[in-house]
């Protein structure tokens, strides 16, 4: 099975109740497909995406072996 590693941070991690999981790459083309599959009943939230630790757009392609992260707007500094 081809897997994508998915990670969550801050408010999104809290609301999903988990900080990471593995998702089957079958039927997944882009970040948005991953988000649809994992976000379930989360409702509309402001979410940012990083693919392999770089910011990416929701329509950016993802595939097996990729690390994809979803998180709210950042508040460092």
């Amino acid at each position: 099975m081809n897997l994508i590693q998915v990670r969550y941070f801050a408010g999104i991690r809290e609301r999903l109740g988990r900080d990471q999981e593995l998702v089957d790459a079958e039927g997944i083309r882009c970040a948005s497909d991953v988000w649809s599959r994992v976000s379930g009943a989360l409702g509309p939230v402001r979410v940012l995406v990083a693919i392999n630790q770089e910011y990416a757009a929701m329509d950016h392609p993802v595939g097996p072996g990729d690390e994809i992260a979803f998180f709210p707007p950042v508040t460092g500094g």
Partner: protein
Amino acid sequence: MIRVQSDPFDPWQEVAAYQQQSGSLAGRFGATTVFVGSLRDFSQGRQIREMTLEHYAGMTEKHLEKVSREAMTRWDILDALVIHRYGRLKPADPIVLVAVWSAHRDEAFQACRYLIDELKTRAPFWKNEATDAGQRWVVPD
């Protein structure tokens, strides 16, 4: 240089030590600009007891390295130092330090401002405040 750490740090000692250790800088810089961000004890109408800074380990360092390289390319600066904490912080604790050395002040100010602005708007950190009325995630301005 970039450092991301959970240990508290003294920004003034860090700048002094970094300058001392980079002996080759001495006499070459005419301008040093430093920004320090600290945890305030009061925020959006609530007393702050402590703050927990979550971060995306790995991506944070990558991002800070990239932004630091960009600053070195874009402005004529000699060196830059960025230190950022994560984990649990107490009010008055320094959160972030940005220091820039250059021949002239205009470059030093611009690069320092660029680094802290990029860090605030793009580096993957999230602040969670413990207030008298419970916990909350900080929302960007």
